[in-house]
């Protein structure tokens, strides 16, 4: 009797297991893996137009089967929906997508320029709240086109466009340093941090915007439409104010101590021959920002210490001489200083403390910060900011004297 009741109990327990019915299980076949999300503003009414770049695995993965990758279709499909909240659009898109949208592998969130120039500070709640979206997903602002258009552009080599953009972002950040990789978590930190404003890299379509989504885009060696990383968007209170490009963008990275490596071109002699230049590769750059308070007025000093190699010289200069090196260092120093000054001016003129000077002040002079916190934007615009640069050229490459004779 005891064994019977025990065995029936066990049987009931075993029956409970299949009753769960694998409630959380999702087959891979039933998932649409999203590579990127684009968010645009609706033109006339409040709300969002959200585009999903869905990866077509069989076109991307190129699994054997006789190498028939070409007939597998486009590597991505873009679905677009509109609604007053992002979450709403996601669910609404089920009307278009045959499979459930799956967000855990999003690489990129593209924000349309029109949306960015209004207000995007309310945008990120969904991304933080959702358990599927990763906070490390990168953000970019589409420049000159809508996010939807940008998501449609097909890319060669890297078959998934979102991966392609991500790769471009990473490599420009690390070897050219004119753009920065910003994740959703960085943006949220900046939004809740004291007085700090947003900086998000820009992305634009180079060439014919309408051709990007066609398969023909991949059939040419020189693409009709390409995606290019271009500049950094400077925000004030969640609103896109201006774009930092070229030297300004590099200056912006320098102030934030995010300069990893880049190439700076400086004139190599005093004369104004534009062809006589020396290209210096920055190998190491460290930035420190220090705050001082004089009579209740905050002031800042930006210290930059950079090291580099001479990578290319197009005039006759003997780099085995100490003087020649010092002269180059001097020119490099003033170039760096100029880039940083420009970047600071761009921020100060928009009275947007994108580089986090306020946070430096808060750390060193918390009491002064408390007093200034409320009107920090105006105070920042008039702050005295000094720039000190030390530049060192360490190596001159495989040769000292160029073959060019004067």
């Amino acid at each position, binding site marked *: 009797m005891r064994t019977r009741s025990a065995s029936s109990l066990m049987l009931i327990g075993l029956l409970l*297991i*299949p009753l*769960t019915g*694998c409630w*959380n*299980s*999702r*087959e*891979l*076949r039933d*998932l649409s*893996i999203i590579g990127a999300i684009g968010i645009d503003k609706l033109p006339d009414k409040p709300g969002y137009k959200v585009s999903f770049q869905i*990866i077509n*695995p*069989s076109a*991307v*993965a190129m*699994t*054997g*089967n006789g190498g028939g990758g070409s007939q597998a279709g486009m590597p991505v499909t873009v679905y677009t929906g509109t609604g007053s909240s992002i979450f709403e659009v996601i669910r609404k898109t089920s009307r278009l997508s045959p499979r459930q949208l*799956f967000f*855990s*592998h999003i*690489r990129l969130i593209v924000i349309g320029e029109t949306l960015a120039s209004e207000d995007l500070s309310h945008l990120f709640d969904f991304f933080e709240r959702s358990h*599927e979206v*990763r906070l490390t997903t990168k953000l970019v602002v589409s420049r000159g086109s809508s996010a939807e258009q940008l998501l449609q552009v097909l890319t060669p080599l890297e078959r*998934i466009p979102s*991966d392609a953009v991500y790769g471009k972002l990473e490599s420009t950040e690390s070897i050219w340093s004119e753009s920065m990789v910003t994740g959703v978590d960085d943006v949220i930190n900046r939004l809740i941090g004291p007085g700090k404003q947003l900086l998000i890299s820009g992305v634009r379509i180079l060439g014919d915007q309408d051709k990007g989504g066609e398969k023909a885009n991949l059939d040419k060696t020189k693409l009709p439409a390409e995606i290019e990383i271009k500049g950094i968007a400077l925000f004030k209170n969640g609103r896109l104010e201006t774009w930092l490009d070229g030297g300004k963008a590099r200056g912006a990275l320098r102030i934030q101590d995010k300069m990893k490596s880049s190439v700076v071109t400086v004139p190599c002699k005093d004369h104004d021959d534009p062809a006589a230049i020396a290209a210096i590769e920055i190998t190491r750059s460290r930035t420190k920002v220090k705050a001082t308070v004089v009579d209740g007025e905050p002031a800042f000093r930006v210290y930059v210490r950079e090291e580099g190699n001479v990578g290319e010289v197009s005039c006759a200069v003997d780099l085995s001489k100490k003087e020649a090196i010092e002269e180059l260092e001097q020119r490099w120093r003033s170039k760096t200083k100029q880039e940083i000054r420009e970047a600071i001016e761009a921020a100060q003129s928009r009275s947007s403390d994108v580089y986090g000077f306020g946070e430096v002040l808060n750390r060193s002079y918390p009491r002064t910060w408390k007093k200034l916190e409320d009107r920090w934007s105006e105070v920042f615009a008039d702050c005295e900011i000094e720039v000190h640069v030390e530049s060192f050229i360490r190596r001159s490459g495989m040769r000292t004297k160029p073959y060019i004779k004067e």
Partner: protein
Amino acid sequence: MIKRRKLRSQASQQPSGNSVSPLGTDLKANLQRMKQSMGHSNDLVVREFRIGYVQGDAAIVYIDNLVDKKMIGEFVLRSTMSGAAGSESNASERDIDVLDTIKNRILPLGEASIAKEWNELFSAVLNGDTAILVSGYAGAIIVSTHGGEHRSVEEPSSEVLIRGPKEGFTESIATNISLVRRRLKTRNLWMDGFKIGNVTQTNVGILYIKGIAGDKTVEEVKRRLNGIETDGVLESGIIEEFIRDHPFSLFPTLDNTERPDSVAAGLLEGQVAILIDGTPFVLLAPTTFFMFFQSPEDHYHNFQFAIFIRTLRFVAFMISLLGPSIYVAAISFHQEMIPTSLLLSLAAQREGVPFPALIEAFLMEASFEILREAGVRMPRAIGQAVSIVGAIVLGQAAVQAGIVSSAMVIVVSLTGIASFTMPAYNMGISIRMLRFMLMISAGLFGFFGIALGGLIITAHLCSIRSFGIPFMSPFAPFIAADQKDTLLRLPRWFLNTRPRLISQENTTRMNGSKPVPPGEAAEEGSPDEN
């Protein structure tokens, strides 16, 4: 030597059901009774002759093919028939036990005794001994004349080593004992004999090193062996099932081996070996979980390699236990955990697969197990064909037909290969079965299910014991000194203690001495010596 032990234990352990009945004095009647009780079997050989010593009738009885006939002719018949009758056959001496005299003076054989009861006589004859019955005396001289066909000592087939002795046990317990004794020349190697099985009367011997093996363990082994009540013992597995702890556990709590060097090593660590006549597999008790991961070769190669291989073995153990379940869980519950490019390639592969991942895994695992079982049972000549068909049909065609994804084939084959790295086959069996359970729980609950299954398995492993020793020792309970030869295998001179729990009595193995180059030896050695 074996004989004596055997007989002694036999005396203390009467075969149940048979009452003691002594032999009669009438030779004819005795022989008649013997033939009758063996159903006039053809192979019972009765040879009557006149014995030289007492000048009377006598007979030898033996079973054909169990005995060494040359030995009988040479030493039993010749010596008893001729017998130096005249010289010592005084009237006074005739009265004292003639059987004893024959045994002591005439038979030039090592092992001989006198049986006075039928049971004793039968069991001796059935064991391959020869009985000499003399007319007028109620008793039989038992002479050990074991012989007959045996497999010779060969390389063990189930435990193959690159480096190490190539001898393996055979089906003869006497040979097996000799193989062990040759390795352990100590008088402390003690042996006890049992006869188990009412019908088979199988000789079972336990071997242990007195002073190293725990006395309690030895007592416990004896107690459990004595408690066995069965009609037949044909293999060590039968004994194992009778004496093991936790008979319902999936995990083996007794190790078995075909290698005399493994047995010797086990005895040196304080284990008790149980040898069973008729099988080359010897049981070792007590056994802990980690012993199943150790190969004798770990100690024969250099220690760096041993550590490398042991680590690899644990990794392979994890793969073979968890491989398919992790794959199933990740692919049907935790897609976010898989790197994007891998996920995409998996998704592309699974695009056409009609089954959910769990079913797919079950299909593949089941067919792999079928293939493996077929490979074991198949005659060797066909085996190759089976493996080709298996590889091509299951590997290639199933993927191309879109029934399974190639990733699943990879997972299953990796799992299969990993499971072959286990040195102990019986542990491999438990893993194979547990793998299916974990796959189900992974398919139902994802990683949560795997964690749950893992927890249950771990809790179970920690709760069981083998002859009083916690199965998970030296990890639960944690014994620092025993870590030297568990996951790691430190150099020989570090291993100066025996496993603490197994050899409770005498844990110091040696005063380890590191090899010293001759130059240094002179410097370091001299102060100690002088």
